[in-house]
Every structure is written in structure tokens, then in C-alpha cells.
């Protein structure tokens, strides 16, 4: 398939996943506020911290009010990771490959974006945000479902899945990193109900609360981290995402699993092996932040390698030929 097409479908699905994650983070925060003392700004700042773009935010708005954060993360056309910009990018990518994806996917995504730009959407986002962000999440799920059911699971689909899994792994690691940093000092001091609620919120940010309960019953910071990093079956755990991306990659290249022929396979294989032979105690010993920071860098490295190996091959450069 065309390199440009592979690139577009990969980013299309990454952007949709990104938009969904932003919507879920906002949703969870809104729910959290219902159980919290009313110190508004205090609870919206961490959300922007999770994105890593707090400097961008502060340039425009010094106050972390609910409306300002929602506006920034949802509708800000100057901020490249806002929901509207993610959907715009997803749609532009989809448009450039609409002959590759199914028309159901295209029509849904087109409509998803167009409705988000309508006045009713903006009104609903501020008046009834719970409902609004739920709708955003459900539309993303619907897109994923349509992709699964209406598009052949060939090369293009596998690139889309890799995009989705890489984005998801990145977001899970970020939410864990930020929350762990903020909550841990308090958690080790007291076991007040408010911490309990906060840790539940961390799980809910990854839609992981119920599945966590089935596995671990009582909530401790270590168990939460263990679940979100190492669980084999939970679809948003980092290990699960890396594993699924690896499977899709090997389907594309035809390299047997366990072997590695190109830089992407090598990098992804190494991350996976590390995840398999590391446990939560090793992570604590290394330091949670150090571990996650390193992991995020390596995940980004995979993204870069995908770019050079599959999306920008140069016909006359020998290194590119070797990568093939």
C-alpha cells in the first residue's frame, strides 16, 4: 500500500483515540468534582498537566476554571491536541484515504466532526458537560466498532490498529505518571476516603475501575499502577497495547513473531520483553516517574521508527532499502 496512505490511516486512528482520551479525562474529572470540596481551580489544573501542555494553556488563561479548561481542551482551534483539532486532523486524514476506508467510517467521522462544530455542541459542552463528553466517547467507540466490522483486516487496518494502540499506551502512561506524582505523598500519609476516591478516578480515567476490582478488590496505589502497566488482559494497560501493536506489526511485515527484521520490530519487541520480565516492585525501585518517563520515550521512539520504516522511504537511499 502507498506509504502516504499508511501514514494517514495510522494518524487518523491515533487522533480519534486521542480525542476520546481527552473526553474521558474531562468526564472523570467532572464526576470527581461531585464528591469533592469546591476548590474549583485545584481540580482542573491537573487535567491540563496530564496533557503536558499546561504552558500553552497558561499563555491564554491564567485561571484554571472549569469553563476555561473545557474550552481549551475541547474547542480551542489553536491548541493542536484539543478535541476539535484532533477530529479535524482525523477527518482530513480520512478524507485523503476515503477510497481505502469504508464509507460507513468516513460518513461517521465526517458527521462526528461537523456536529462538533455546531452551535448546539458548544452549548451542550458547557451546560450539560456530563452528557456531552459521554457522547464524544461513544462516537469514538462507534468509529472503532465500524472500523472493526466494515473494513477488511488487511494492511491498512493493521496500521490503524497500531496507531490506536500506540496512542493508548502513551495516554495510560501519562495519566498514571501525573496522578502518581500528585497523589502519592498524601496516600502514604493517610488513608483518607478522599484518596480512595482519587485513585478510583485514576482507574476510571482509563475505564479500568470495574475490571480492576474483579482482579484486585481493594485499591492501593501499587496495585493500580501494576494493573495499568502490566495487566495482560485489560485493553488499556500499557503491556496489552504494546502486545497488540506488535501483533499487528508482524501481520504487516510477515516476520514471524519473536523475530525482528526492521527497526520497528526491534524496538517494539524490546519494550514488550522488558514489560514481560519486569514487575511492579522493580518499577517502584527504579522510581515510578523515571520508569514511566523512560517508557514514554521508548514508545515515542517506536512512533518515529514507524515513520522512517514505512512512511517516508527514499528510493535511492541505501539505508531505506535495508529497512525494507
Amino acid at each position, binding site marked *: *500500500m*502507498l*506509504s*502516504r496512505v*499508511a501514514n494517514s490511516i495510522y494518524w487518523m486512528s491515533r487522533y480519534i483515540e486521542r480525542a476520546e482520551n481527552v473526553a474521558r479525562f474531562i468526564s472523570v474529572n467532572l464526576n470527581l468534582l461531585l464528591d469533592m470540596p469546591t476548590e474549583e481551580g485545584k481540580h482542573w489544573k491537573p487535567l491540563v498537566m496530564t496533557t503536558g501542555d499546561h504552558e500553552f494553556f497558561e499563555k491564554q488563561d491564567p485561571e484554571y476554571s472549569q469553563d476555561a479548561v473545557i474550552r481549551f481542551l475541547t474547542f480551542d482551534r489553536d491548541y493542536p491536541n484539543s478535541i476539535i483539532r484532533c477530529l479535524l486532523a482525523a477527518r*482530513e486524514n480520512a*478524507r*485523503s484515504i*476515503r*477510497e481505502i476506508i469504508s*464509507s460507513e467510517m*468516513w*460518513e461517521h467521522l*465526517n*458527521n462526528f466532526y*461537523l456536529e462538533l462544530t455546531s452551535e448546539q455542541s458548544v452549548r451542550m459542552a458547557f451546560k450539560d458537560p456530563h452528557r456531552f463528553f459521554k457522547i464524544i466517547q461513544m462516537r469514538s467507540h462507534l468509529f472503532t466498532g465500524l472500523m472493526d466490522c466494515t473494513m477488511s483486516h488487511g*494492511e491498512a487496518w493493521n*496500521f490503524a490498529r497500531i496507531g490506536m494502540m500506540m496512542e493508548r499506551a502513551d495516554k495510560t502512561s501519562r495519566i498514571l505518571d501525573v496522578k502518581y506524582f500528585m497523589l502519592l505523598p498524601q496516600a502514604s500519609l493517610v488513608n483518607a476516603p478522599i484518596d480512595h476516591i482519587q485513585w478510583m478516578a485514576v482507574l476510571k480515567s482509563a475505564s479500568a475501575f470495574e475490571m480492576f476490582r474483579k482482579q484486585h478488590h481493594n485499591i492501593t496505589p501499587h496495585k493500580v499502577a501494576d494493573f495499568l502497566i502490566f495487566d495482560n488482559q485489560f485493553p488499556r494497560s500499557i503491556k496489552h497495547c504494546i502486545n497488540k501493536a506488535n501483533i499487528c506489526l508482524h501481520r*504487516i511485515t510477515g516476520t514471524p513473531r519473536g523475530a525482528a527484521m526492521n527497526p520497528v520490530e526491534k524496538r517494539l519487541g524490546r519494550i514488550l520483553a522488558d514489560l514481560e520480565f519486569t514487575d511492579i516492585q522493580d518499577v517502584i525501585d527504579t522510581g515510578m516517574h523515571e520508569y514511566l518517563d523512560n517508557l514514554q520515550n521508548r514508545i515515542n521512539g517506536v512512533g518515529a521508527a514507524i515513520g522512517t520504516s*514505512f*512512511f517516508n*522511504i527514499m*528510493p*535511492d537511499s541505501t539505508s531505506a*532499502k535495508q529497512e*525494507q
Partner: protein
Amino acid sequence: METFKTYDPEAYYDELINVDGTPRPGAKLLIDKIESLPEGDLTLRQKEAEALLLKMGITFNVYGREEGTEKIFPFDLIPRIVSKQDWQQIESGLKQRIYALNLFLQDIYNDKKILKDKVVPEDLILSSKTYRRECEGFTPPRGIWCHVTGTDLVRDSDGGFFVLEDNLRCPSGVSYVLENRQVLKRTFPQVFQASRVRPVDEYPGKLLEMLEYLAADGIESPTIGVLTPGIYNSAYFEHSFLSQQMGVELVEGRDLVVSDGFVHMLTTKGLQRVDVLYRRIDDDFIDPSVFRPDSLLGVKGLIDVYKSGRIAMANAPGTGIADDKVIYAYVPEIIKYYTGEEAILPNVPTYICGIESDRQYVLAHLDELVVKAANESGGYGMLIGPHASKEERAEFAKKIEAEPRNYMAQPTISLSRVPTIIDGKIEGRHVDLRPYILYGEDIYVQPGGLTRVALTKGSLVVNSSQGGGSKDTWVV
């Protein structure tokens, strides 16, 4: 009221209604159906159709506005109906015209007989911006230059058809023909069936056959690509649609490279050779090493590969000379020169500003004439005398005197009209007709074509970039 009871065709030729108010042959079923609908139903169906087009993303971008401005191409539910007799004249006339123009292209780039015989002035050809010296001495695969044509036809108040423009470069709009038909079939299924409308859906299949026919001998299943300028092009939807319908690759210039004397696509598994390109990029932009060096849309070295016969292209570079609006005036003689026949479809009378006597006439009658620049399209660079202000006419007169070669003029034609839904009422609006012609192993004319309609009352400009819409065209 959406009714024909109060409909007035006025002094124009109406495509559906006779002068006495009765339906023309073939239009009765449709008109009876519309009359039988409950009040407001037609407008409702119209709105549903528009919502469907937006949802499907069938939009075009308008140049000169904010990047990414999207509009649906306005679509009117009431179809234009073309009788069998009219269609026979159109079809045979177009086949004759395209056949002759193809011979003309082959001749002027090779033996130049028609120039030596002084049927067409040589300096007119050589001075045209769209004459490509790079094509001299070249014969394209299978001897075909203009593979895809969209000829603009108009009908005047006496009911006769004329050719208004030959579009031999990258004519667009055929995807609207196919989509409009889908919508109309859903809207008027019974009428559609009972009227025995000729199908238009064969077009993508015919286009594919034509492109396959161009591939070099010995290539069993050629790799074919539609070359698009990308998603910001106004016809991007169509490029994507056609490649999807044909099941071929949609490529941009940056997806292609020339290597080892062939054109290749950059794929995730390395280079893959391309055998045929249906290019939707103008000559100027197609190869920066030959034409405009600043083009980012094209493929460097493509023309070399093409001239060595290692890739086929539709349409061939250089066809633009035959749709130069001044050359147009000579097409009836061109037809006669190569076929010995009179043109079946006449031209609109044309004054060539490069000729002294014609120019004097044009300058003296600017208020009656439509003046066009030789190489513009999409309704840009033209003056509609009767609708222009005194200042606009004076300004245009200066342009003509500065560069007479670049202009021609025609009398304003009272274009025929078709009943159209306007604010819940049915009113007459002016239309033209663009049928699509494919030149491969034989010449195919898609039965129907794009009927473009000027939605503004009294307007004669049907271009989508100037507020025009479209209608389905039924050949019955």
C-alpha cells in the same frame, strides 16, 4: 406552491414544458408525479437530498476563500429530460467532434498538415500558451490524445443545440452525475423506472477499460493510478470517488518517483511500478523538470518516462491547445478537414479578437456579447456584456486591445431553462449540459451528463464556482 399550474416558461425554450404549458414527451410521468405530491413534500425531499450529500461529504472547495471552505454542490431534484431524438444528435455530434479533434492534435504535433494547408492559422497555434513544444514529434499510446472530454452544450430559444466549449484537459463533474442519479433513484423510484431512463453507472467501468487499453502491450494487469493534486483541490471528492469505483490507487505527486526509467509508487513495501496514470493535474504542474519548476504537485521526470513509452497518461499532455477558446472557432473547419463532413453539432457564432474586423465589431458591441479569455475556465476571466456595468466593459475593452489574441466573443445566448425548486416554488432557471466522452478502443458517450443550472434568477452563469447547481439528466 410546488406546482406546475402557475409555471410560466416565458420566452425561453423550456426543457420539460411546451409553449402551451403541456409536458414535453418523456416529461409527463414526472410532472404528474410532482403534481400528485402533498404540499411541501417536494421541498422536504429536496432538503433530505442535500443533507445526504453533506453527510456523504460530497463537497467541493471554493478557491479564493479560506482554505478548506467546503460547500455541497447545490443540487436540484427536478431532472432535465432529453428525448431520444435530441440525444441521437448529441451523441453522434460529439463522437464526430472528438474524433476530429484527436486527429487535429496528432497532426499539429507531428505533420502540421492542417497548418500548411492554412485551414488554421499557424501563428494562432504556436502563440497559444497551451501549445506544448515538448510534445512535438510524439505519438501517444494507441494514438489517443483526448481520452476524457466534457463538452459543454447549450440550447438556444429556438431549441437548437450548440457546442459552447470543448474541455479536453481535466474536465470534472462526472462524479456528480453518478451521485445525483443515486439520489434521484431514491426520490422518484417509480417514475424513474417507468420513464426507462438510460443508465449512467457504466461510466467508471468504461473509464477503467479505457485506461487498461492504454497500457503497453504485454502488461497483463496494469497498475493504474488516479493522480490528484490532493484534498484541497476543488474536485478532490471526484478523484477519490473515481479511484474507489474503479478499484485503483489514488496517488498524489509526492507518492510517485521516477527511478530506473519508470514511474513508481512509494509503498510500505518499497517501490511499485505504475503503468497508467489518469491524471487530474494540469499540464503546467505535472512535471517541474519540464513545465512549471515551482510545481509541488507533479512528478519530476514524469514526462521523460512518458515520452519513452514506459507509462501511459490520460489525457495526454498538450491537449489544452484544442480547447483554447480561440481555436474553438475553427473546430467546424477542423471537422470538415479531417472527416469531410459538416459538423453535426454547430458552434456558437464566434468573433475572434485577433482578427481586425472581428475585433472592431466586438469592441462596438460589448454590451451584447459574452467575451472570454482563451485559456481560462470555471467562469473566470469572462465578461457578460449585457449584465456588466459601463466601467466593467470599458476595462475589458482595454484588456482586449492589449492582448487581442487572448480573447474571443460570442452573442449572448438565451439558454434553455428547466423548472427548478426555488424557495418552495417551481421557477424556470437557465441550464447547460456537459456530457462526458471517453476515447479508448472506441468512443463512448455517457447517456446523460451533468446539467448545470444557474440558480440565481435570470443568471446565465452555471459554473459551480459562481453559484451554479446541478440536476440529474435523464436520457429517455
